[in-house]
Structures are given as structure tokens and as C-alpha cells.
């Protein structure tokens, strides 16, 4: 038995939060409750469509995907691996049990560069297929240094492959509203930030600490738990838990920024995969993107509070949880 969903577009996405764990992961309802979607069988075998677009041939697409998959596979403390099956004449988003990645023309999704659709086993939550489409309505580039006016194919592929692994969106970025609608990125520190860098930028080709911590949390090497630490706590407003608040832990030693969310009604959160060292923790409302691109139940998300720092410097030690951090926020 399987279910199918669409997730992880760069602008439009549907995401489900997964329990009380760290990071935003896609969740699946199974008999035992909500479980994070993840691949049970590795390597993940994928096929590439044999069609190109102006600026990116099928071979270019294949090469960009190979680089992007390798970036995720090379994460030290994650076990996920991928295997290229070759070219295929199939198209993405057909529920055939085969993971297919390629271009599709979707003029109706005028703000969507790409998206990931997945099929999972409803008994276990295990992923069985995850297709990625890249919208051929946009101008694409595979130029090494980027190309003015064209979106970088490898950067967008890297983002979508993050969803393919089971990761939801990160909110580690700042945006501004565009006069014609939508948002423009000012800066971001996660490949899984829902809004892409501007055409011509190749900054999205490099996984950031937040992405690395996230994929390691889903597919942990044994040493992931022993070499990194975590922070747990609660965000409270007027004595009540805040749901959907975005937190970021800033490692004063490494400069890493790793994000997370309050994922329970009592405002509980876990920031995991943190490198050892003193951390500053900051909480803010989800105000740099459509809330729907982070949570499928947007009405539960509290946006009415001001950005606030924790009043404690939290020292994280490898293999341990620095727990019981309470952050009190005020309404706007």
C-alpha cells in the first residue's frame, strides 16, 4: 500500500512536520503515528530523463545531478548513498516505483523552479519512489561560474535532492517582498531554504552546516550521535507553548548556524547535530517565506512574537544533550 505526495518546491511546497525531532522532515501517517519519511533501502537508485532544455542538455543535467548527489553522499556522518541507473524515457511524477529526475514544462507553476514528489509505504513510512521535476519554463545554466539571467541547475537539484532524502525546508534565510509579488532572497545559510538565490548565482551548490546536520539526523552514521550534541528546550509566550517558531543555534566556535522549529504544542524543540562548543540560541517567527512551504497546517503556526535571544549561552558537548533551555518571547 502506498501514498503519494508533492513536496519541496522552491516556492510552493507542501511539508509535514515530523513529531518532536530536530529539523523539518517530511512525515508520514502510519498505524503507529507520524514517522519521518526516509529511505529504508540504500543506495537510492535514480534515473535521469533523456531530454534537455536550452542551456542544459540531457548530458548536462546528468552531470549536474551527479555532482549534486555526490554532495549529499559525501556528508561525513550520514549513511545515505545514491546510484545512477542511467537515462530513461520516462518522465517525473509518474507513480511507477522508479525514481526519475528531469525537466517538465509546467507554465502553471510560475514561481516553482522544481519540486519533489514521493511515494511511500503507508505501513512503515519508507520511501519507495521520489521524483524530481525541474520546470523547463525557466532559463537554466550549468556554467561553472553561473550565467547571468539563468538559474543554476546544480543548485536547484541540490535543494530538491535534499527533499528526496526526506528533509523539509529550512528557514535559515532573510528575504524581502518583491514589488511584483513573491519574495527575493537577501541572504541564506541553507540549501534547503525555500527560495532560490537569484539567477546567475551558484551559491546554492554548497551544503551548509544546517543541511549537513539535517541529513545526518535522518541517516546517522554511528559516530553522528557520539560526535555531535543537541539542545532541547521550549519557547513560551505568556506562559504557553509556541508552535512553529524557528530557532537557530549559532556555534561561537565554528560559526555554524543550525536551525530547527518548535514542533509540539508545548513549544518544545530539539536542535541536533551540533558541533561541540558554546552556542547562542535565537528564536523568530516564520516571516521569510510562505508558512505553507514549511508546515502543512499553517494555521497552527504562531507568527505573533518578536525575535528573541536565549538568555543563556549553551555549551554543547559531543554525545550529550544540553537540555531545558526556556526562551520567553513577547507578542509583537
Amino acid at each position, binding site marked *: 500500500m502506498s501514498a503519494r505526495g508533492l513536496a519541496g518546491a522552491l516556492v510552493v511546497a507542501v511539508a509535514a512536520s515530523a513529531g518532536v525531532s530536530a529539523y523539518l522532515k517530511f512525515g508520514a501517517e502510519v498505524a503507529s503515528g507520524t514517522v519521518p519519511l526516509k529511505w529504508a533501502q540504500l543506495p537510492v537508485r535514480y534515473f535521469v530523463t533523456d531530454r534537455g532544455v536550452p542551456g542544459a542538455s540531457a548530458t548536462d543535467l546528468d552531470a549536474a545531478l551527479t555532482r549534486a548527489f555526490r554532495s549529499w553522499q559525501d556528508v561525513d556522518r550520514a549513511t545515505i548513498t545514491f546510484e545512477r541507473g542511467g537515462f530513461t524515457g520516462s518522465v517525473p511524477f509518474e507513480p511507477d516505483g522508479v525514481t526519475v529526475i528531469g525537466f517538465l514544462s509546467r507554465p502553471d507553476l510560475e514561481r516553482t523552479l522544481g519540486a519533489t514528489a514521493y511515494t511511500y509505504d503507508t505501513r512503515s513510512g519508507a520511501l519507495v519512489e521520489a521524483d524530481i521535476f525541474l520546470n523547463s519554463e525557466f532559463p537554466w545554466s550549468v556554467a561553472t561560474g*553561473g550565467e547571468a539571467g539563468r538559474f543554476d541547475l546544480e543548485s536547484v537539484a541540490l535543494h530538491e535532492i535534499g527533499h528526496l532524502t526526506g528533509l523539509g525546508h529550512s528557514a*535559515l*534565510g*532573510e528575504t524581502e517582498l518583491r514589488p511584483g509579488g513573491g519574495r*527575493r*532572497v*537577501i*541572504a*541564506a*545559510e541553507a540549501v534547503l531554504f525555500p527560495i532560490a*538565490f*537569484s*539567477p*546567475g*548565482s551558484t*551559491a546554492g551548490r554548497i551544503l*551548509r552546516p544546517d543541511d549537513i546536520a539535517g541529513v545526518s539526523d535522518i541517516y546517522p552514521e554511528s559516530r553522528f550521535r557520539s560526535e555531535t*550534541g543537541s539542545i532541547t528546550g521550549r519557547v513560551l509566550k505568556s506562559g504557553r507553548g509556541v508552535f512553529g517558531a524557528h530557532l*537557530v543555534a*549559532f556555534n*561561537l*566556535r565554528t*560559526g555554524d*548556524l543550525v536551525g530547527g522549529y518548535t514542533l509540539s504544542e508545548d513549544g518544545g524543540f530539539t536542535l541536533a547535530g551540533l558541533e*561541540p*562548543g*558554546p552556542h*547562542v540560541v*535565537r528564536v*523568530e517567527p516564520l516571516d521569510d517565506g510562505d508558512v505553507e512551504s514549511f508546515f502543512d497546517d499553517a494555521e497552527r503556526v504562531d507568527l505573533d512574537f*518578536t*525575535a*528573541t*535571544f*536565549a*538568555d*543563556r*549561552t*549553551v*555549551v*554543547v*558537548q559531543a554525545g*550529550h*544533550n*544540553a*537540555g*531545558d533551555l526556556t526562551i520567553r518571547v513577547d507578542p509583537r
Partner: protein
Amino acid sequence: MTRRLVGAILAAWCAASPMQSSAQVPPPTTAGQPAATAAESVPARPPRYEVALGPAWLGGYDLGSRSAQLTGNLGQPGLVLFETDTEMAGAFGLDAKLGYRLTPTLRLEAGLAYSRPELRTSVGDDAEGADALVAVDPVSQYVVEGALLAFALQWQVGGGVPYAMAGAGYLRQVASDGAAVDSGGVYHAGGGMAWERGRAASWLKAWGFRADLRVNLRTGGIDIEEATRVWPSLSARFYVAF
């Protein structure tokens, strides 16, 4: 190299002390007493062991500044989300020593020091206007150390005897929730004054008061970078010798 140099300085100081002092006269006698009186108070065996306890003040030290930076969009510099500046604040603590008098001018000491300095991070300049604050975490700090002390008996001032000291130890710092522990090495050098009085009980051969000022150097421990940190400390101790 540094430790060798300190050792050489101590050796030179000891060599400068009068031989008769180190051979016969116990360390500092009661101020102003005639030599004969002092000689009468000399116990049959000079004190060998010493136990000291007292408060200490540890100076703070800066750990540095960092910016929480996001990668900028095309053609734009990175965005600083907020700025931080971190220090280990000064603190009072408790210092206990166990000493062994090798000679009247040289002592070996083992010690345990406890203090609770605060790890303080000033956070501000937030891109979204979050109120600036100082994030604090009290750290339990333990130092187990050994030191060599050299007393300059011939340079008494106001009844006190100056001394120089140098040593090294093991540092252990535990964050407030007890989950995070960092360790490192501590080295110190400094000097002070000791005022010693004679027998107070049959088993007690001497008692006195010591105060010293040290410069401490730390490697490891809770920090935001691989760096050596330096801070002053001042301690005062009551001690008994037997």
C-alpha cells in the same frame, strides 16, 4: 622552554638565599623578635607539611567576537544576522593547598581550586531588531595543580617573606547543566608574601597567612577558538604547618 626558564629563575633565587638560613633557621620568625627569642621558639624538627585554605579572585578574559553570517545573494555581501562578543568573567573561588617543605626556602605544593566564573556572551545588532542581551552560563571550574615555591628569607619586609612560585595543573570546566565538560592545562607564575607565626599547639609547629598574585595561562577549556588565554588571580590563604 617556558617552564625551563621559570625553573632556572627559581633556582637562581634559592641559590641567593643565605646558606645558614636554609640550613638551620626555620622560615620566617615572628617579626621584630631578637634572634635569640626566635631561636628559642624553634621546634625540635622544623615543620614539614603545610595545609592552606583561602579565597581567591580570578580575573576575567576575553574570548573574542563572532558574527552570525548568512551567505549573500548574487552581488551582495553576506548578511550579519547578529553579532556576539564572548568573555569568561572574573569570579571568586576557593583555594586549598597541601605543601611539603623541601628546605626552609623551597616548598612543593599540590592544590585544588574551585570557582564559578560566568561565560558571558553579549549578543546584539540583530538584523530583525531582537533586543540585545548578555547570555550567561555559570561554569564550574576545577583546577588541580602542582607548584614550586621559593622563599627569599633574606628579603623580609614587615615581618613577611616574599616568595616566587610557578606551576602547572589540569583544568576542568563544567557548564551549568552539567552536560558539557571541557578540560585543558593551566600554567602559572607569580609571587607573594608570607607571614608565619610559631607554635600554636603541640602538634602545630607554625601557622601563618599568605597572599599571592599570579599570572595564569590556559590552554583548552571552554572557548570559542584554539587559543591560549591569560588572566591574573589574587589569593589569600591561612595555613598551618606541622
